[in-house]
């Protein structure tokens, strides 16, 4: 079943008609409020038109009307699965504009929590991907273990999902004493669960058959479409902002950029996009271990480098590697305490735009698989 051949059927006098199917915005597997207008010939998808904007929450308008600090909570709500990662590029950008340098402990806590959040996000991605394939149980297993990460975040910031923890020039508060042990526990548990998920879901023959050679995205097309994150790396492009343009203290750590290797299936198909996420969880664990070693033990005042007044001047395009891909903010500051313009370049927005081009010619069941492998978050697409 590696290749799909075009079969020509002579229908004689029977007239056939293409069916327009409306998937969403409340369909169980559109991961939120995405609406897809699908044109079907039998079960074969001939065209897909995504309609987005059902969760357009006016982030850019609101950010123009709030101060630089007030923008951070709204950024949390953009990609609500990976709030810590979202805050990082914005805060780094403002710090760069204002010339603030933060201490090693703050930097390493930032790295640790972003990597933890990356793991949490990939867990959700794999879980929902499995659910799209019809396996409900891995979803619950992964959510169960995600709770451990959320507990640590809760102890740090007080919030389970939306944290507002990384602040311009520091953090909300310093890490608590048993932080290191908790994180080490999480790493051990994540590795255990990953083995379980590999056994239960990813090495399952049915799952492999469902996902390989589905929605293959060639590398050059992926680059031209501006894809990033696991979507691009699944196509075999070694592009990871943590390596390419290291921000924060990522240049101090030793880790691999995982790419889709095509050991099973072809490079760039849904299976490889998914397996990249599994690899990345392991890489994140490695980074966390190194960052824990690098982190100075003595607790310190994380508010020491807080600026008295945040009113930078200048323009900056600041970006970071989100679990979904490259999250960028184009910030224009004109010397007042409110940003003149904040444009969010969200990875899911760009990754989703490739969907119509990789899902044509597959079946409707494959369309769901492809959509799951893209791993979108609507809050980020619609902002």
């Amino acid at each position, binding site marked *: 079943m590696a290749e799909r051949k075009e079969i020509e059927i002579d229908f004689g006098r029977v007239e056939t008609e293409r069916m327009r199917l409306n998937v969403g915005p409340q369909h169980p597997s559109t991961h939120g409020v995405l609406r897809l207008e699908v044109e079907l010939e039998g079960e074969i998808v001939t065209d897909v038109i995504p309609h*987005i*904007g059902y969760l*357009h929450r*006016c982030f*850019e*308008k609101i950010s*123009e009307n709030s101060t630089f600090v007030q923008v951070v909570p709204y950024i949390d709500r953009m990609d609500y699965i990976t709030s810590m990662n979202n805050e990082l590029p914005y805060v780094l950008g403002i710090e*760069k*504009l204002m*010339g603030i340098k933060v201490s090693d402990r703050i930097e390493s806590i930032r790295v640790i929590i972003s990597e933890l959040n990356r793991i949490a996000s990939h867990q959700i991605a794999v879980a929902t991907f499995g659910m799209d394939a019809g396996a409900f149980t891995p979803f619950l297993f992964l959510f169960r273990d995600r709770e451990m990460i959320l507990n640590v975040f809760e102890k740090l910031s007080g919030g389970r999902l939306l944290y507002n923890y990384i602040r311009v020039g520091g953090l909300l508060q310093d890490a608590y004493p048993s932080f290191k042990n908790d994180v080490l526990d999480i790493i051990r548990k994540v590795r255990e669960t990953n083995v379980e998920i590999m056994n239960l879901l990813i090495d399952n023959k049915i799952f492999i058959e469902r996902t390989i050679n589905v929605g293959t995205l060639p590398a050059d*097309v992926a*680059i*031209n*479409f*501006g*894809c990033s994150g696991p979507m691009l790396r699944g196509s075999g*492009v070694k*592009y990871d902002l943590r390596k*390419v*343009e290291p921000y924060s203290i990522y240049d101090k750590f030793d880790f691999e950029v995982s790419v889709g290797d095509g050991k099973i299936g072809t490079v760039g198909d849904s299976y490889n996009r998914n397996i990249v996420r599994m690899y990345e969880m392991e890489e994140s664990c490695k980074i966390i271990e190194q960052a824990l070693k690098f982190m100075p033990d003595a607790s310190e005042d994380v508010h020491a480098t807080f600026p008295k007044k945040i009113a930078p*001047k*200048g*323009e*900056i*395009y600041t*970006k970071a590697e989100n679990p979904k891909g*490259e999250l*960028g903010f*184009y910030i*224009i500051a004109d010397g007042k305490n409110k940003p*003149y*313009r904040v*444009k969010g*370049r969200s990875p899911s*927005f*760009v990754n989703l*735009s*490739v969907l119509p081009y990789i899902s044509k010619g597959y079946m409707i069941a494959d369309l769901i698989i492809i959509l799951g492998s893209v791993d979108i978050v609507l809050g980020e697409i*619609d*902002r």
Partner: protein
Amino acid sequence: MTTKEIFEKLKNEFNDDVISIFDDGMVSEPFITVSSKNLIDIMLFLRDEKGLMFDYLSCLSGVDYKENFTVIYNLFSIEIHHRLTVKVELPKDNPVIPSVELIWRSADWHERETYDMYGIIFEGHHNLIRILNPYDWEGYPLRKDYKAPEEYHGIKVPY
């Protein structure tokens, strides 16, 4: 390549269409301002010229300045790992700019979004319709003089 070098290279190729460079050497992002007339050629040159190879359009955003609309292109080269910001200024009364959708497909949705938010018209875009706001929405929300509607389809909008 730094922005300055790219600017000189561009200036040699398209002398008048490349207007200015901003590079204060500080933290602020350096950028090149070009005119919208020859935009497609400039962008193609940026993408295909050896040594530039900007094959990745990171971001495309519109800005509503007091005197003009500006479209900002953030380019990145996955081959060479360098970045560039290109700005195009448009008059307020007739914001029309050629679409770069055929050069970078990622521009497709970004341009639709910019049209949706600012009303900037991208000539040559194959499907320039609203993307985030409903198709029957009135006005361009991110313009500085935008007033939110009182009612939409019989639902009261303000709090």
